[in-house]
């Protein structure tokens, strides 16, 4: 019986080297496999923030000094710059505080449209017992398109002065609301 000599140095053993190659190959395959088990994609994100719409009063609505009429009479302040006050039959439109239409600055984002609404309270006497006078407002626009800069809104109105209205200073409040639509 012939016994083959055994090569004890495994690094020179061809079979050992062959096994090493197999192991290396398997490890590479596993690592490669891992990369294919996952994928990702990215998406950009965009948003635009629009300035809030603003409105501020630059000139209050002023009806001026009015002589008390013998019958209920409408006094109008025109809805224009400065707001002229046409003469009204039966009423003395005296001097004193000049009548003017109210003026507002509206600032809205360029190209954005908005609505305008107005609301008023009746005018009440500051000191005496005079009757309240009803007020209706007439804005020169009920909608608009922003420019990014201030835009002017004029608001005139119609005041109903009662027959024999007691002399006094009368005040009320009016509100302009603007909304993007």
């Amino acid at each position: 019986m012939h016994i083959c000599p055994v090569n004890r140095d495994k690094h020179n053993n061809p079979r050992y080297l062959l096994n090493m190659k197999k192991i290396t190959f398997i490890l590479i395959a596993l690592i490669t496999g891992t990369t294919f088990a996952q994928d990702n994609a990215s998406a950009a994100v965009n948003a635009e923030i629009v300035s809030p719409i603003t409105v501020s009063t630059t000139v209050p609505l002023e009806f001026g000094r009015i002589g008390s009429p013998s019958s209920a009479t409408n006094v109008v302040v025109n809805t224009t710059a400065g707001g002229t006050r046409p003469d009204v039959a039966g009423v003395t439109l005296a001097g004193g505080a000049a009548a003017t239409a109210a003026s507002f600055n509206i600032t809205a984002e360029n190209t954005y449209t908005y609505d305008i609404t107005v609301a008023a309270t009746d005018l009440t006497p500051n000191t005496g017992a005079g009757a309240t006078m009803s007020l209706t407002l007439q804005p020169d626009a009920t909608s608009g398109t922003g420019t990014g800069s201030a835009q002017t809104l004029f608001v005139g109105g119609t005041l109903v002065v009662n027959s024999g209205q007691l002399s006094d200073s009368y005040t009320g409040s009016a509100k302009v609301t603007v909304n993007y639509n």
Partner: protein
Amino acid sequence: MNKIITGLFLLLSYSGFSQASASASFQTSADVVDPIKINKVADLNFGSVIGGDNPGNIILSPAGTRTANGVEISESSPGEVNPAEATIGHGNNAYSITLPSSFSLFNSNDPSKAMIIDQFTYTQTSNGGNGTDIIKIGATLNLEANQSPGSYSNPSGFNATVSYN
């Protein structure tokens, strides 16, 4: 037991006959599947939002509808609004989707001004049963009080990652 006996025998053989090696065979198996893939179709666009005096947020659903909380949106000028969209090739294997927890957008005129988006949500729908799905991704855009107007974006994009389970 048989295996153990065999093993012992081989060991004995090794020493007895001074063999240089021993071998045993065993079965291996592997299922090879197509790699999973995801491809972006659309970016995430929140559209135009009107800032306010108070903080708020806009929730954009995966279906593309916006809900405003504490801030306002213009019905007539919504801007470009759409959820992010991607296709996933999964070869009818189960997979999972990972989205970031938050992501930042920066003002195009002043990058020091930022907004955070978070609470990503998504819906998956089968794209005809051919081993691909369509996912749509929405998120929540958070506005600070008096958020500076302008365009906010992040072109580097957020990552949606898909992995086989």
